[in-house]
């Protein structure tokens, strides 16, 4: 069942920006609890601080909302198992990086974990995906890019990350992230100018 719009949150780039701010603030608050040796407390804080942002990140990249539930579950399962590996200042970005790899694995293979996310999947089954606002030509130009280029552009435009934050997600240096971003933007601009795209239809 799709709930009426008045009773829904639109998990979009705009809302993500809102959550991004909130998530970043909470993520910065997390290190205080990292002083605590209690893994349960640490994980709960991490989970609650990052759940909404991670769900948004995964939803925007999943083939279906139901599939997003499994990716969110697998990502947090990795976090639970590697709690001490999570950088204190970048928990949210670290989770994005894990989710990126989990997404790739899910596209390649069948379900990998016990069914932890049954309820979340059930609830997301009723999620309604609105069509993109962008002209078709923009989508075609974007699809013509490599996945690496697309992801670096998404991280900046959808998650509103800085180049330094993109570097954390991708596991590279900030300088490398800036170069990747620059090149991806240039290639996207080039793709938008391809003859196959009807001139004038890509409105600024």
């Amino acid at each position, binding site marked *: 069942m799709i709930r009426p719009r008045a009773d829904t*949150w639109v*998990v*979009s780039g705009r809302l993500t920006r809102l959550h991004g701010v909130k998530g970043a603030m909470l993520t910065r608050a997390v290190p205080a609890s990292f002083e605590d040796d209690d893994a349960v407390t640490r994980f709960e804080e991490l989970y609650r601080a990052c759940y909404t942002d991670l*769900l948004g990140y995964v*939803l925007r990249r999943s083939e279906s909302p139901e599939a997003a539930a499994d990716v969110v579950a697998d990502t947090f*399962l990795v976090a639970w*198992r590697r709690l001490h590996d999570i950088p204190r200042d970048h928990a949210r970005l670290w989770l994005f990086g894990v989710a990126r790899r989990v997404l790739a694995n899910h596209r390649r293979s069948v379900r990998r*974990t*016990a069914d932890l996310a049954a309820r979340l999947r059930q609830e997301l089954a009723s999620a309604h995906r609105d069509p993109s606002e962008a002209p078709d030509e923009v989508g075609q130009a974007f699809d013509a890019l490599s996945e690496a280029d697309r992801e670096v552009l998404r991280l900046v435009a959808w998650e509103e990350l800085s180049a330094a934050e993109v570097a954390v997600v991708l596991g590279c240096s900030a300088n490398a992230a800036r170069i990747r971003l620059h090149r991806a933007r240039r290639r996207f601009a080039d793709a938008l100018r391809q003859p196959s795209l009807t001139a004038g239809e890509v409105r600024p």
Partner: protein
Amino acid sequence: MNEVDRLVRMLAPHHEVSPSTVDAAGPAAEQLMREIMHQPSLEAAPRRWARLSPRRPLVLAPVAAGLAALIFVVAALLPLSGPGGPQPAHALQIVRTDGYIEIKIVDPVADPARYRAELAAHDLDIELELVPTGPDHVGRVLFEEVLSDPGPAIETIEAPGNCAATANCSVGIRVPVGFESSARVVFGRTARPGETLQGPMPAPQDASEDAKRRARAVTGGRVDDARAKLASGPPVTYFTSDGTQQLKAADVPGTWYVIHAIAMPDDHITLFVAATP
């Protein structure tokens, strides 16, 4: 934000999702968090899990709940080895056989620490977990993961003729003597009231009474006889009697036996067959 970024932003999919689903304090998020924290944390010794082996997905129909429930009952009745009369209650039945240690669940609601302790007594580093599941998967192995260390693998104990709707016929695990790696195995248990089921979901509907009657009519007989009786119905599917392999009809001799037969939700019949009765 430059123009390129603005265009990329326009490509972001929008989802309308219930606020309670998006809320980290909502019931779905809370339940997922609890489920994850119920999983073994590998903090103490970070490991690389190499082989992830979820049991076969749901492809067939539900089987009688009584069969699955029987597994625990039978296991509970089996004598436990050891001198000195009655043993204290064990959470697991652990039996050393020819080159293997066979493990079945005795107490499906025991504290996981008890499973671990009993397995550790046999020098086994195995995390064993029970999750609530549908009646046809109670007592069955739902999930296994084993470390990448080289060496013998864990096998499942299959019970031909006692198969769930998913062709999952497992009733325990068989660990080779000398298994030095680590593993995690998830069994299904009966759900408590209000618990969310895990593992393969029940089929959306049951088979018709007529299809169930036809399945019963061919159980125990020869494949030739089953084919004659089922000729007027939907196509029949075949599995080996332990449910591990689907067979082409042409590869199943008529002289073989139908060890078990299940009526599917769409009323077609699945036969579990073997060369000997």
